[in-house]
């Protein structure tokens, strides 16, 4: 991931990233001294592109700005705070992200039929959900055994769902995920635990005003509507 971000140094220095990308990149910069050094040189270069355009502004601007300034309150400096709840949650989010990525990479090596491009695309979507400012994580047990974790972003309308330790099913059945809420439940994908390890993560999109993610056991191939009670639900905030 960091190698991916690293290639964005020039685009960052040229201010050519979207806000979300920029925030991610700046987080990365905080942990990467060599990147910070390189970005510094690139930003100074971009600054030269800027100062080369210098032109006298209209004379009337000066008094106007000075008048405005005399009426404008300044912001206090940033101070280093003890680890806040938010930072702790960020830490937890990060470990959840690592968990999910580990699962994805595991899937990539185990299931050869999943092409690299598809895994990359999924990775990309998962990272986007994980790094969304409004991402929330809900974890809970699955009734017959195992546990589930849902990371959801309202702004993206997407959720990443990871199940661990699910009991194996007969070939006539499958697990199916549902997006639930005011509207009738909508299937978000089926999953079967592989012979060894856990199923890969599922990306649910178009959350809209959904309130819950649920898991049921369905006939192989999945159902149009849930036919059994959910064995796991995660309530979206």
């Amino acid at each position, binding site marked *: 991931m960091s190698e991916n971000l690293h290639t964005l140094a020039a685009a960052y220095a040229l201010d050519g990233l979207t806000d979300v990308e920029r925030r991610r990149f700046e987080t990365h910069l905080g942990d990467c001294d060599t990147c910070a050094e390189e970005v510094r040189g690139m930003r100074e270069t971009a600054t030269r592109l800027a100062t080369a355009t*210098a032109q006298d502004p209209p004379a009337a601007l000066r008094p106007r700005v000075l008048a405005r*300034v005399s009426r404008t309150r300044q912001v206090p400096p940033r101070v280093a705070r003890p680890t806040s709840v938010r930072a702790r949650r960020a830490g937890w989010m990060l470990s959840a992200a690592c968990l999910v990525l580990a699962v994805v990479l595991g899937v990539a090596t185990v299931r050869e039929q999943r092409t690299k491009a598809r895994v990359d695309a999924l990775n990309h979507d998962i990272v986007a959900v994980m790094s969304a400012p409004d991402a929330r994580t809900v974890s809970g047990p699955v009734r017959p055994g195992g546990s589930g974790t849902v990371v959801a972003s309202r702004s993206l309308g997407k959720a990443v769902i990871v199940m661990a330790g699910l009991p194996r099913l007969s070939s006539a059945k499958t697990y199916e995920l549902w997006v639930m809420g005011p509207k009738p439940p909508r299937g978000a994908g089926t999953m079967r635990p592989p012979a060894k390890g856990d199923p890969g993560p599922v990306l649910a999109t178009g959350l809209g005003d959904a309130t819950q993610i649920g898991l049921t056991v369905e006939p192989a191939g999945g159902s149009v509507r849930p036919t059994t009670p959910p064995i796991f639900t995660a309530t979206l905030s």
Partner: protein
Amino acid sequence: MTVRHVAASVPDRPADSTNPRPSPLRIDRVDMSERRAARSWRSEPIGPGHETDLGDLLTHVARGDQGAFERVYDEVSGPIYGLALRIVRDPAQSEEVAQEVLVDVWRTASRYEPGRGSAMSWVMMLAHRRAVDRVRSAQAAADREQRVGRSAGPAYDEVAENIQVRLEREQVRRCLSTLTDTQRESVSLAYYSGYTYREVAELLKVPLGTIKTRMRDGLIRLRDCLGVDH
């Protein structure tokens, strides 16, 4: 002779930023305000000269010193307005952007972190983002289409206020000319037209990875040509 040699032979760089005497190249009719601006607009991010001063001034501004802010204004208003004009094009809107940026400098001076870059580069980052926000939010797509054709570099037909600004422009232009056409196009579309790298890729119909590489290679070449310390 390489282009770089030409750039290096211009007798205006480091020595001048620490030399208070007027350069022999300075033309006679430059008045004091222009001379002040000329010193200010010398972009020497690495030297111990005025950049340190600008950083120091920001420290005072952060403590509410309005006198220090007036000096900051004189240092940075030209580059801010010039960049806004370059990106936004419309003079009235550019002036609004410049005003917003200058008030931002006052408001957020305490957030400037010297460890992350020069004071000028912090100010120009604020300016670039404001100008791009203005372009992205307010201007119609058609308006932007028109600008693309003119985004190859700073506009040289505009009146050069003084010899040093002109030399700085010439150097940047020379260095831009050492880039390949595709590198220059990508760098200019991002910086002077305010496009994201994704938009640049879409516009030029090339893969994202290619654009990232062009921007990277172009910026590194530009950095080395301009002699920016890194």
